[in-house]
Structure formats: C-alpha cells, structure tokens
C-alpha cells in the first residue's frame, strides 16, 4: 500500500511536470504567435496584405500551404537576408525582390510562428534553436 502510494505520488508529480512543461511551451508559442502578428502588421502587411493575399504581381501571396510546408526552414534566411529568386506560388511565378529585415532570432521565430499558423497554415511550434540552425544554412 505504502509502495503504491509512493509510486502514484511520483507518477502524479511526473505527469504534472510534463503537463506544466507542455502548457509553458504552449503559452510561449501563443505569445510568439501574438507578437508575430504585431510584427507582420508593422513590417509585412504593406506588401503581403491583411489576409496574406499579396499585392498583384509585385508581392506574392503567402497563402500557399504546400510551399510554406516545404520551405519553412528557409523562412529565417528569406526574412533576414531578403530574397530575389523567382518563386512559384499557387502555380504562378513571381519575380520580385523581398527586402531584408535585420531582426533578432527571437523576432524571426515569432514572425515564423505567425506566418506558418495563419492564412490557412497549421504548422505548429517553432523555436529560436531551429531559427539559429536555419540561419547557418543561408545561401
């Protein structure tokens, strides 16, 4: 009985630790999303639009879920260093020039969490560690 009590206490502690860890992470990701939305409105919306619809042929929409899934690990580089390679979005080729944004890793993470979880995307969490790693592979 005593053993069982200890066992279940330990188990309960472990579960609650895991749980609070998960909620802490969720809280953090939610904060990233909200801050990322602020960054989007201030820095990206002029070109990419309120609903991510883009601006005619000048700026592509950022609503292509297939492209976004495939290229999530490129986003940090694209945003930090700008981008001028033609991109095919929803089957249409765009040849523009995306400006560079000298952002800290944390801001890059927040904007990435936002753009990969809004406008029809649902890619879940992203971390500053992943961003730091992505940035090492910029072309």
């Amino acid at each position, binding site marked *: 009985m005593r053993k069982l009590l200890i066992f279940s206490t330990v188990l309960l502690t472990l579960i609650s630790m895991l749980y609070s860890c998960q909620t802490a992470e969720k809280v953090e990701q939610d904060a990233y999303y909200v801050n990322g939305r602020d960054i989007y409105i201030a820095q990206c919306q*002029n*070109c990419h*639009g309120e609903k991510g619809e883009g*601006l*005619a*042929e*000048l700026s592509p929409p950022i609503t292509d879920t297939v492209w976004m899934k495939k290229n999530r690990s490129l986003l940090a580089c694209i945003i930090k260093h700008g981008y001028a390679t033609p991109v095919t979005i929803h089957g249409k080729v765009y040849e*523009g*020039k995306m*400006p560079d944004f000298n952002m800290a890793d944390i801001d890059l993470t927040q904007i990435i969490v936002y753009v990969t979880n809004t406008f029809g995307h649902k890619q879940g969490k992203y971390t500053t560690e992943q961003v730091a790693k992505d940035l090492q592979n910029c072309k």
Partner: protein
Amino acid sequence: MRDTKAIKNSDGSAGVDTVYQTIPAFKLLNQDSVYITNEHFKNKIYIADFFFTSCNTICPIMHRNLKKIYGKFADNPDVMFLSHTIDFKYDTPSRLKTYARKLGVDGPKWQFVYGPKDTVYGLATKSYLVSVEADSTDKQGYVHQGYLVLIDKDRRIRGAYDGTNPEQVAQLEKDIPVLLAEDKK
C-alpha cells in the same frame, strides 16, 4: 493648402473666397517613354502621388489603396491617375512600365512619370505640396509623404488624402463623384 482671400461680392459687400493651389504646366516622360503634359488631363480630374518603384514601406500601401479606387472608376474616362517617381537615378520609363504591369494597371488611365530631379521635386514640394527628399541617411535613400492629391479640371488642388490611412482613402473615394458632379454644372 487651402487659403482664403477677402473679396468684394457683386453687391459690394465683403466676403471670402477659397484660393486653390494650381498645378503649373509640366512635361514628363511616361512609362511608354512618351512625353505627357497637362493636355493629357484636359477636362479630367486626376489623382496624383509621389513614389518610387523599389520603395518598400508606404508605397505598396498607397498603391494597394489607389488601385482599389482605380478599379471603382475604371469605366469613367473623366478620372485619371498620375504617379511621379522620385527615384531619378533608377526609375527609368522601362522600370515604370514593369511596375505598372505588375501592379496590373498598365494603360493610359494611370500614368507613371519620370523627370529630372529638380522638375519632379519642384512639382512635389511647390505645386502638389507633398514633401519629398533624397536622404542618404535613410535606408532606401528617399523620404516622402504618401499623399494622394485630388486635382480638378482647372488644375486646382481640391484635396489631399493620406494614402496609407483607410479612412482618408475612403473619403477620397467619396469626394471624386462630388467633384465630377460639380464640373457637370
């Protein structure tokens, strides 16, 4: 922008009249490398602004908004558009052409014009009353205001609206038919 002056009414009593700023004669190269002048806007009202094709801050917002108005008046030949580039180094007519095509408005109704720095900056600051400046400390090299300036058939400024402000753009959209109706009288 709008000034008043004291006048004598026809009955001899005193009154005030509005004095509007007038746009002088100009001659500028458009996106088809053709010179255009005020003649192009004769008997039309037009909306003028100052921008540059590589501007990545306020210009996309101004032109996103202006394009909506362009769409609303697409079938009205009395309404025209005139965008002046302030990037005298880079924005040649062919760049303007590409920009117009990409914005989806390449046609005679919306003119994109290029001119020497002094000409365009003079028009902006002295005639349309929009502040523009080449500024080497700015990341993009230019600082300018995002006004959309409404000009009547007599080349007079009848309103200036912040092209990045949705309420002011909505007001511009409402003021256009009013001005058109006034000219019909």
